């Protein structure tokens, strides 16, 4: 019987895998807790103690616990510690769904605008209410955290995204080398 596993790329060890060059690196973030909150978001904010100031596409999040808007009535909440609000429906008019196992987080450090330019036609300098978008051909949640770019993708597509990122960074490096060679030839 054929070994069909050879048809797919090997899943990297997400704890150690890094793609990068000196000024650009992508790695997977492990250990963060993620949950969707749907419904009355103000009521959830009162119960959870997390301010209802969600970031949108390319917005800047900060701290260990923050909310990202993914729809008019839905948030993706990311935190270093488990949510204090239990999963399920709440009488206040909102529902909490744990999705830590469903979404994988990637963090891009350095010149991430070059990655964005190849992943989406959107202007990273323009604001948008929702951080959910098509990114590298798949659904993703994209925003900034400090100086980094964070990208949440479906865990089943994480290896695809990794393969895409490796190819794109290879192209960026290749284009930079070619440009450098042409400059040297024209001046030499």
């Amino acid at each position, binding site marked *: 019987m054929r070994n069909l596993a050879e048809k797919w790329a090997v899943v990297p060890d997400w704890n150690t895998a890094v793609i990068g060059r000196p000024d650009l690196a992508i790695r997977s973030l492990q250990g963060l807790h993620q949950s969707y909150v749907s419904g009355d978001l103000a009521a959830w904010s009162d119960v959870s103690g997390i301010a209802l100031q969600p970031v949108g596409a390319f917005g800047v999040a900060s701290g260990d616990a923050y909310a990202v808007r*993914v729809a*008019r009535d839905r948030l993706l909440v990311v935190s270093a510690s488990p949510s204090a609000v239990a999963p399920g429906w709440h009488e206040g008019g909102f529902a909490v769904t744990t999705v830590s196992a469903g979404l994988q987080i990637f963090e891009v450090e350095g010149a991430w605008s070059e990655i964005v330019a190849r992943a989406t*036609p959107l202007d990273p300098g323009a604001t*948008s209410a*929702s951080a959910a978008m098509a990114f590298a051909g798949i659904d993703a949640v994209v925003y900034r955290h400090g100086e980094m770019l964070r990208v949440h993708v479906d865990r089943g597509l994480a290896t695809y995204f990794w393969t895409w990122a490796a190819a794109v960074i290879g192209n960026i490096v290749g284009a930079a080398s070619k440009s450098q060679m042409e400059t040297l030839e024209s001046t030499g």
Partner: protein
Amino acid sequence: MQLFHCPFCGQRDETEFHFGGEAGNIRPDGADVTSERWASYLYLRDNPKGAVREVWVHMTCGEFFVMARDSVSHHVASTTSLDCAEHAQ
């Protein structure tokens, strides 16, 4: 490639959107609806040339809205959330 304007998110790539049908094609209600009316609702489309009003959904945020656009030039005149509109008339 074209950018559409989601009433909630703003400018987004056209691939994030899905066509939902002509605006104003309201589902018949009641037990005495004729087969001709059902056939009209299910199968018959105006498909006009020029200005059209259509229901679209932004798949990434789930926003349903009415888009007024030109079916020839593809120019988008406006987008209105169905939360705000009386109905997709």
